[in-house]
Structures are given as structure tokens and as C-alpha cells.
């Protein structure tokens, strides 16, 4: 528990504040985008000059219902990524390929309840998935005896602040929050893939194609009649859909039509029929295509800016 290399919390241990339900719980936001419409992505590359490549990605928050202290503003996904390309130390065994290692780290203030600095299972899982998504894309043979350290920092996650507690209702709220966090991880993975891809592009590392991540979810159809049908929405915000049946994340290479990472949660076939899974994955891939245009545009802007700067001199 205690870590001699850091400043430790008080020895008695602290607990996260619990909010009483003083006000009526605000209505959850509803989706105002079309099912096939993505949120706007803010992406900026080259934010860390001392790194080989770096990028910052932000998704806009959904409009907040009522501002209160537990969530004074709606959280939005904020990620940074840096790529450091460096020769491996002499003591390392020879490798003909580029060694890629990915570290995803949540900032302690990234979630409603403070996280510690010790790496947890969630971070490790995301790291492995991002590594999988990138491994097939980078042309590793061109960089023998080199290492690529990719580090992604989650400055802010999308989960909503701690819901108000009420006696008796405590557990239900906790369970709902848990599933929301569950789906939010999928959006986060897509964001991590996108920001990592942008950092790799910024670092100028040879790739077979620019990889991009996309998410799609299967939700109960929001029709006027309210009859039981399902629809597939791109880039879902878990809060906007009370109920998510299934969701898929892909890391997708559009020019090769290849998927390097696929993660499906829930059972799309139960609600969407035989073709349920295929529809869901196709939708996620088309979300990835949308994200890819942003990555390429950000890279182009950066290069253009540099060219203009040198021409100006």
C-alpha cells in the first residue's frame, strides 16, 4: 500500500466523498445526433516537442443537464499520447524488428473516484489491446535494434460523476454506474487507438496504413411507437442510451479492409438476428473510417505548418 517513492496519503486512509440526494436526479441526456453521425473529434499533434511524435485528442462533452458539484461540467474524453523512438540499450538482446511497447495510464483525477498510481488491470487490458491494434500496422522490419515506447495518458474519462446515494437504492445505482463504465471503456479504447495512431504518424514511423479505431453499439430503437426493434448507432455515449444490448470496437485499416483488433461485448445475435454481429462490426468500421480522416487531416496540418514555418525563415 505505502509507496516509498511517492508522497503517501494519511496513514488512516481516506474515502471518496459520498453525495446525498439533495436534488431530484437530473434527466439523462438523449442522443441528438443521427445514428450514423460521429461526435466531433479534436486532435492536435506534436504537443510534446522532445518526443518523436505526440498527439492530444478530445471528444466534446454531451451537454450537461444541471451543473452541480459532483459534475460541474460534463466530462469528456481527453487523451494524450507520446511516441519515443530510441535505440535499445546495448544489454538488450538483438532484435531484427522494432520493439513496440504501449503503456496506458489513467491520471489519478481521470475518474469520479480517485485512482492510485499503481498500474491496475483496466490499464493493462487497454495497453494490450492498443498494442495489438498497432502491431500489425507498423512495418517493424525497417527498425532493427530499436524500441518504440508509446505512452497514452487518460486525463479525463467519460464516466459521469458519483450518483447521489439514497438509502436502499445504493446498490442499484452502483450497478448502473458499473455497466456505464463498462461501455465507456470501449469508447476509450477507440480513442486510445486513434490518439496512438496520430502519435505514430507524427513520429514518422512507417506503417502499412493509418489505423483508426471506431465504436458502434446496438441499442433499442428509439421510434415513436416504442416497439421492440434494435438500431445500430455509431460512436455511442453510454449515458444517452439507457440500455445497450451490444457494442463493438474495431481498429481498422480502410485501404486494406483489415481489422487488427476487435472487441465485442454483449450478444448482438440475440437481438439483431443472424447478421447482427456483421452489422455491428461494419458500423464500427465505418466509425473508424470517419476517425481516420481526422487523423490524416491533423497530420497534414502539422506538416503544412512546419513547411510554412521553414519557408517563412
Amino acid at each position, binding site marked *: 500500500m505505502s509507496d516509498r517513492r511517492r508522497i*503517501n496519503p494519511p*496513514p488512516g*486512509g481516506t474515502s471518496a466523498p459520498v453525495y446525498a440526494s439533495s436534488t431530484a436526479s437530473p434527466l439523462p441526456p438523449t442522443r441528438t445526433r443521427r445514428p450514423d453521425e460521429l461526435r466531433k473529434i479534436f486532435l492536435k499533434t506534436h504537443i510534446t516537442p522532445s518526443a518523436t511524435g505526440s498527439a492530444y485528442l478530445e471528444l466534446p462533452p454531451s451537454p450537461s443537464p444541471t451543473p*452541480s*458539484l459532483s459534475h460541474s461540467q*460534463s466530462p469528456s474524453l481527453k487523451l494524450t499520447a507520446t511516441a519515443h523512438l530510441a535505440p535499445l540499450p546495448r544489454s538488450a538482446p538483438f532484435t531484427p524488428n522494432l520493439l513496440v511497447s504501449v503503456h496506458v495510464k489513467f491520471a*489519478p483525477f481521470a475518474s469520479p473516484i480517485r485512482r492510485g498510481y499503481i498500474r491496475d488491470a483496466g490499464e493493462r487490458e487497454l495497453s494490450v489491446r492498443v498494442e495489438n491494434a498497432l502491431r500489425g500496422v507498423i512495418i517493424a522490419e525497417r527498425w532493427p535494434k530499436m524500441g518504440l515506447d508509446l505512452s497514452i495518458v487518460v486525463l479525463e474519462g467519460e464516466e459521469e460523476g458519483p450518483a447521489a446515494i439514497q438509502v436502499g437504492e445504493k446498490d442499484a445505482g452502483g450497478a448502473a454506474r458499473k455497466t456505464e463504465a463498462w461501455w465507456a471503456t470501449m469508447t476509450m479504447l477507440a480513442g486510445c487507438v486513434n490518439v496512438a495512431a496520430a502519435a505514430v504518424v507524427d513520429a514518422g514511423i512507417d506503417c502499412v496504413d493509418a489505423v483508426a479505431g471506431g465504436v458502434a453499439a446496438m441499442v433499442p430503437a428509439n421510434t415513436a411507437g416504442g416497439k421492440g426493434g434494435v438500431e445500430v448507432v455509431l460512436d455511442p455515449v453510454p449515458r444517452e442510451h439507457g440500455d445497450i444490448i451490444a457494442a463493438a470496437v474495431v481498429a481498422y485499416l480502410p485501404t486494406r479492409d483489415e481489422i487488427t483488433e476487435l472487441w465485442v461485448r454483449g450478444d448482438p445475435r440475440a437481438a439483431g438476428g443472424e447478421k447482427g454481429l456483421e452489422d455491428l462490426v461494419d458500423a464500427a468500421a465505418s466509425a473508424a473510417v470517419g476517425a481516420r480522416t481526422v487523423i490524416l487531416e491533423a497530420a497534414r496540418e502539422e506538416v503544412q505548418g512546419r513547411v510554412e514555418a521553414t519557408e517563412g525563415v
Partner: protein
Amino acid sequence: ALSLPAPIFAALAPSSFLLAHLTQPQSSTKKRKRPSVRPNGRLATESRVPVINTNSLAHANGSAVVRLGDTAVVAGIKGELLYAKDIPNPPPSSKRLREVGGSAPPLDEDDEAKSLAELGLLVPNVELSTGSHPAHLPGTAPTALAQTLAERLLETLQETRLVSLDQLEIWGSRSTMARDEEEMDVDASEEQRDDDGDETGKESIMAYWAIYIDILFISLDGNAFDAAWGAVMAALKNTTLPHAWWDEEREMILCDADLERSRSLTLRGLPVSVSFGIFDSTAEPRMTNSTAGADAAEANLGSGRWLLTDLDDSEETACKESISAVVDGASGALQLRKLQKVGGGVADLAVMEEVLKLAEQRWKEWKRIL
């Protein structure tokens, strides 16, 4: 002759590179001495302009992003509750009593600082291994620099007495029933029972707010401490803690999510950290030949020695001597709160006076934006 591109020269021999820039020969037409210009285009005592953005993180009680040129820092503050019953060796100040709704007996400032340090309510931590710099790669334990920074932040927080203890206290009175039960459980001594008798109708401290200050470097290009301290100040100034009270029924602290009832943290003064480096070209034997040109430009400490402010990364490797001052001018005259000088032997009293003069200017600069 062998010639290298500037970036490679800078990486191979940072000291010679810095000296070559500082002593660039002046044009012969002008008689006046030209001031030295550093490789980054700044004058010797010119600092980077800090840029601050506050409260852009939704999950934190207070947050700030501070940019100092290519050094970028994010600070996030989260408040958590430390229950009085969980404190192993409570300091005397935590046993104070007050009338219900009344004001607490005031604390001596020394006692307060001591209690605050003993309770450990301020927890600053620094994370450099975010890929912010090639020397601090992710996946490793905090480096020596990260540990030093965190310790220095904690020290500065405690020594400047920035946060007063009374705004971190949460008062409440335990009902007589709860107390009776406790007495039955614990075989309380006669003396304690007497104390409890006095407690009726009085409130005691039920919990404290522990303030976690987490600082992440997005990008590191020198002068880490000034940037980190600036971020701590900006974030603390914008921190709001929810209204919290002791709930007797549930025997826990509850907080009010209402923004109107929350209160912001008030800070004592406005301490600002200003760091300097002294570049001594005469100390490096291999460079004595090139110091011949040193008279060409003005060395602000004379004979090949320069006082530089707000060092960047390559300058930090070239400067052996560094001075760091924490100053506060909020109460009118400039107060020196902390002064640290490490390495070298160039700085004398006159230099220190110059340092304080520059620190005052810098404090005004920070004050405008904080």
C-alpha cells in the same frame, strides 16, 4: 574543418553550444556591448511567459494547465475524507470542541502548521513518466527528479502555510445514544468518561478533507519546479469543496452536490517560485580557449559567467549551479519564503540581491495571470 549541424552540436556539447551562443561576436560597427542571447533566442534574464487554463477537468475539485514554453503541466486536485476515528495518533488540535454552530477555538499558527503536517492532509505527487521527456520513460518507478519535485512541493506547501487547517475540518456532534453505545463497547477509563460528560451539546471534529494534488507533466523542457508550483497555485485557487456534514443516522459524512453551497479554498498569500541557473564557462577546462571571445558580449556576472533565468532542458544540463526562490509579494513588500541554492560557488551576496530583484519582477508577472 569539421562542422556539425546545430542540433547535433547542442546534443554533443551543451556547454560549448551555450557558450558559443552567449558570446557571439558583435558587429564591429556598433560600439556598445550587445547583450548575450541564449540558443532559444531569449536574453540572459528573460523568462518564458506562463499561460494558464483553469478548471477544464470535470472530475477534479480544481484543476489547471500551465504552459511555460515547451513545458506543459496538468494539475488536478481531488478532495477525499479522512475520518477522525481513523487517525492513529491524532494531534491535540483534532480534539478541540466547539458550541453547536459556533466558531471553533482559534489555533496558534505554529500549532496549525504542525497539525497539518502530522495529519498529512496535503498529498502532492508528480508524474513525469508520461512520455514527457526521453529520460523519463513510462512503465518505470518515479525517477529521482520526480521524487525530488514531489518532496519539494510538499515542503513548500507546508512552509508557506498556504492552506489553513480550519477550512479542511468537518465538525459534527455525535448523539448521546451513539456515545453510550461506544462506552459500552469500549471500557472507557474514568477520565474519558468525564470528558464525554463535558461534550454534551458540543461539537468535535468528525473528519478532515485530505487534498490530493496530482501533477502530470505533458511535456518537459526544463524548469519543472516553477511550472509545477504554478500549476499547484492555479489549481488550488480554483478548488471548491462541497458542503459536508456529519450524518448521525448513517454515521458517515455526506456531501451536498449543490454548487451554490460549496465553498472555494482560500489561500494565504500568493507564493511564486522563480528558478535561476548560473553558467560558469571558466569552470570547464576544455572551454578556456573559447572564452577568449567572452568579452565580446556582456557576461552579466563578469568574466565568462552568466546568470540565466527560467532554464530550458539543454541549459539545465550545462548549468552546474542553480538557485530557486519562493517569493510572495501579496502583503505589499516582497517576502522571501524559501531559498535554495545548489552546486557551484559563483553566487555571492550581490548575485543573491540581483536574484531577488528579478524574482520580484517575475512575481508580478505570475500575479497578473494567477
